[in-house]
């Protein structure tokens, strides 16, 4: 079952004519001509679609929280900052099929009553920005954007905004600061953007994949979407796979397939690269806890783990993890967990915006201590020190980057403590 990527390999699908030949822009016609904004929102609510940026907040519910004071503009901002290590699904979708996102932007903006919308794309993806801008121009030329779209009386302008290289700008309030031309320092929440967002106006921020799914929901109805998947994990999800599988890449899966199937079947990752064994997986981008092979395949209760929000988090952090952004990082037995954890710790250290001292100082400490262990100068007390620093960051910061930095370290130690200790006890072997 494919919703977002059904036509992604059709030649020239990035052009509006080919896109329309494959059913593109029907949702715009249907929504603007035959539906009210509230009816669109209602279908999205029924679909059960949850935010694909990682937090999984129900999209329809967020839309219905949008404040609507008289005379104040409302905005839709698409979060295409995609910078979470392991995550490259939005990049793939936008580069190959830009109109999928643009169509979703039009339908979603209509539902929210936004007349100006922005797609904030990480600046490194400038080539994708050019692809989007070209596609937006095509949509204007066909009358899907601009004034009085399809004679409906609804006006919409759509722009692409480049970032400047900063992971933190994927956090929605930092993104809004950045879009206002400032440093990407996260704001305190609440107020949520839905109440005070871009230029202090009510704003919905949604991920590329979330917005892209709305056209299918308009075309086929929320119930049809909800019929795919399992429980509160409805629909399909893009999973970007990196690491030691035979076929890394981006896959659209119906939520609910087993992790084992996803990793080992030919339809998806095709198994672990030749001659090697699965060691560990980070299932939802670098921020979520790493799990060893046995726990990613089977929950602590002995059930087969499935690709859903609920199943992946089964067992809490003791034995579970999170679906997150769908950045699925696979490691075989040749992987050094200490080195891998160090690269993430350096990442968060580098990306901390520096506003909160636990995050600014703590990420620096974790980076430094891990570096020392990795380079053969670890001390006996270092493993506990890392756990302690991670604990002190968690929950004590303005935005979740602090948590995101502490979880990977804490989880790596939870499940692979012996490897850290081995590095400390055998410096001469560890640095080989």
């Amino acid at each position, binding site marked *: 079952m494919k919703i977002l990527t059904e036509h992604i390999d059709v030649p020239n699908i990035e052009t509006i004519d080919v896109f329309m030949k494959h059913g593109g822009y029907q949702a715009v016609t249907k929504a603007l001509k035959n539906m009210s904004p509230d009816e669109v929102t209602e279908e999205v609510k029924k679909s059960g679609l949850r935010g694909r940026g990682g937090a999984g907040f129900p999209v329809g519910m967020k839309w219905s929280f949008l404040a609507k004071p008289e005379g104040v*503009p409302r905005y839709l901002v698409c979060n295409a900052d*995609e*910078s*979470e*290590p*392991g*995550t*490259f699904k*939005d*990049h793939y979708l936008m580069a190959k099929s830009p109109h999928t996102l643009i169509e979703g932007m039009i339908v979603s903006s209509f539902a929210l009553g936004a007349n*100006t919308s*922005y797609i904030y794309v*990480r*600046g*490194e*993806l*400038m*080539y994708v920005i*050019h692809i989007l801008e070209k596609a937006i121009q095509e949509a204007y030329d066909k009358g899907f954007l601009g004034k009085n779209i399809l004679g409906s009386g609804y006006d919409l*302008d759509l*722009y692409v*905004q*480049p*970032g*400047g*290289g*900063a*992971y933190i700008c994927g956090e929605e309030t930092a993104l809004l600061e*950045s*879009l*206002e*031309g*400032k*440093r*990407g320092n996260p704001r305190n929440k609440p107020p949520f953007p839905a109440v005070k967002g871009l*230029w202090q106006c009510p704003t919905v921020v949604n991920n590329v994949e979330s917005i892209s799914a709305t056209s299918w929901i308009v075309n086929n109805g929320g119930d049809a979407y909800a019929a795919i998947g399992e429980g509160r994990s409805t629909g399909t999800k893009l999973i*970007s*796979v*990196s*690491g*030691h599988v035979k076929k*890394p*890449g*981006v896959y659209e899966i119906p939520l609910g397939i087993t992790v084992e199937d996803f990793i080992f079947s030919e339809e998806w990752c095709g198994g672990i690269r030749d001659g090697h064994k699965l060691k560990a997986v980070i299932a939802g981008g*670098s921020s979520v806890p790493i799990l060893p092979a046995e726990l990613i395949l089977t929950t602590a209760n002995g059930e087969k783990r499935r690709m859903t929000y609920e199943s992946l988090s089964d067992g809490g952090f003791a034995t579970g993890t999170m679906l997150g952004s769908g*950045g699925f*990082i696979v*490691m075989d037995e040749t*992987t050094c967990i200490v*080195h*891998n954890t160090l*690269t*993430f710790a*350096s*990442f968060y250290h*580098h*990306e901390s915006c520096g506003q909160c001292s636990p995050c600014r100082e703590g990420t620096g400490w974790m980076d430094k201590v891990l570096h020392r262990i990795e380079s053969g100068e670890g001390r006996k007390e270092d493993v506990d020190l890392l756990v302690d620093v991670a604990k002190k960051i968690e929950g004590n910061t303005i935005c979740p980057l602090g948590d995101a930095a502490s979880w990977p370290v804490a989880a790596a130690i939870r499940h692979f403590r012996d490897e850290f200790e081995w590095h400390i006890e055998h410096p001469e072997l560890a640095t080989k």
Partner: protein
Amino acid sequence: MEAKTQVAFPAETLELVKRIIARYPEGKQKSALLPILHLAQAEWRWCSPEVMDYVASLLNIQPVEVYEVATFYTMFHLEPVGEHVIEYCRTGPCCLMGGVEVYDHLKKRLGIETGETTADGKFTIKEVECLAACGWGPVFQIREKYYMHLTKEKVDQIIDELGK
């Protein structure tokens, strides 16, 4: 090779600047800062104080508002760089795909370390964090172009090509 000395965009870029500013409501022209810094860097290769002052004047904001932004975001070069800036992804998933070895090869091939520029001014290498291409790694970026599935041989080819 020489960076231009007089800081002013050509007429067509100035037209583009106007169109960019028009994307935002009246009085919110500061939002155009990142897009215009990108244009400036494409024009002058790096963001010198003169360039940043010029950007401030275009947007009618204080120079310090430009400095604080340009220093926050990693894509802006605050010091002169070579003709080709190679931005190499050093994050975990790329390392799993063999990124460390390939990077060592690149440094050896160019005879420079991270952050340095070759003597002929052709290449600068920088380490960057995840470029959202993890499954296609190892990856580096030169300007707008992504070079993916890198191997030592591929790196040699790219350097031969660009070094001409």
